[in-house]
């Protein structure tokens, strides 16, 4: 598998799995606006994944659905950060913000890529991600500004920090540390990143649920 396909799968798998996790708030978010917001963000992320899977499928002579749904859990490139199931608000906001911050750094780098197709798609994705970042930062500010929210968010951030570091390659990690610490006004624990390639047990469970309808139909079924 070429480096290009590896990279496309890394991006696509992160967006697909996080999109699924975000969609778990549909119908049960703390209030209606957030129900709409997380559902819409999920739709965007899965849309990004789909476009990236199309590029992979073209290179592999496959189709996007097969690439997205027919692999074994250990063949996914997703970062453990997006696999965790944390249906709790502080952890949801912490993961959302950490991921969007890391993803912004990654997209900035890709927008400068010599691969014109990759640079173009990164720029297109980034236009939409702007709104995710505004949303995530709004919530971080809101929680940091509340007596009850701040300790909860801090605890969630410390817990998820090693996972956030694992989203990026070594060369981009210092930028993530700088941005997150600047926003929080405090240092984060010095920890080893939870590396990509390792998977959380929740991933297999997620994939089982996500692909259950597809697996129930005969191969080649048209939807």
């Amino acid at each position: 598998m070429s480096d290009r396909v590896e990279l496309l799968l890394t991006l696509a798998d992160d967006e697909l799995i996080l999109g699924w996790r975000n969609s778990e708030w549909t119908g049960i978010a703390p209030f209606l606006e957030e129900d709409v917001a997380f559902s819409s963000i999920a739709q965007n992320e899965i849309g990004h994944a789909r476009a990236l899977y199309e590029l992979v499928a073209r290179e592999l002579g496959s189709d996007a659905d097969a690439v997205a749904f027919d692999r074994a859990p250990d063949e996914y490139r997703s970062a453990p950060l997006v696999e965790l199931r944390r249906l709790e608000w502080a952890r949801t906001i912490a993961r959302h913000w950490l991921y969007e911050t890391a993803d912004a750094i990654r997209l900035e780098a890709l927008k400068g890529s010599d691969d014109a197709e990759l640079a173009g798609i990164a720029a297109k994705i980034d236009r939409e991600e702007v709104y995710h970042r505004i949303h995530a930062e709004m919530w971080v500010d809101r929680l940091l500004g509340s007596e009850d929210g701040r300790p909860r968010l801090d605890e969630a951030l410390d817990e998820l920090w090693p996972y956030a570091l694992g989203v990026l390659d070594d060369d981009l990690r210092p930028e993530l540390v700088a941005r997150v610490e600047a926003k929080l006004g405090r240092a984060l624990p010095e920890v080893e990143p939870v590396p990509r390639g390792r998977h959380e047990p929740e991933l297999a469970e997620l994939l089982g649920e996500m692909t259950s309808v597809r697996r129930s139909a005969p191969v080649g079924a048209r939807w």
Partner: protein
Amino acid sequence: MSGAPVSDFSRTPALADADVWKAFAEIPDPEIPVISIVDLGVVREVRVEGERVHVEFTPTFMGCPALDAMKRQMEDAIRALGAEPAVEVVLDDSWSTDRITAEGREKLRAAGFAPPTPRAPEPPTLIQLERGPFRCPWCSSTNTKLENLFGPTPCRSLRYCNACRQPFEQFKTI
């Protein structure tokens, strides 16, 4: 090639780019039918080459479920002109809300959707979205407030007009 009218029943070699554009101008956006796909600015290029019509199509929001329907409708429109469609989906950065035509923006406004504000060199910020002069499509007041960055589809935010006390949908600028 001339822009001579095309009859419905002959595969005429006289099909021109303009005929295809005219047919596309009749295709409504599947989610907001007041506006056509040409108004929306998603058709980047039309090129008639003999019996084939090449189209470059740039999606709006990548998760928009209307994209497949738009592509299918363009293909049907080309077949109805007696030609073979070749619609290429271009996933680059060339579509922005600035590509929505002036006419399209007015149609949106008249239907109660506040059209997107022009793109600025820098991406929008929360402060701009909260304090900027966003105009109510119903009463034209700019005394409106942001209710939710996200709305019923990826392209829209929700706002509320303090003057006429109506909620409305604001197109996001991307």
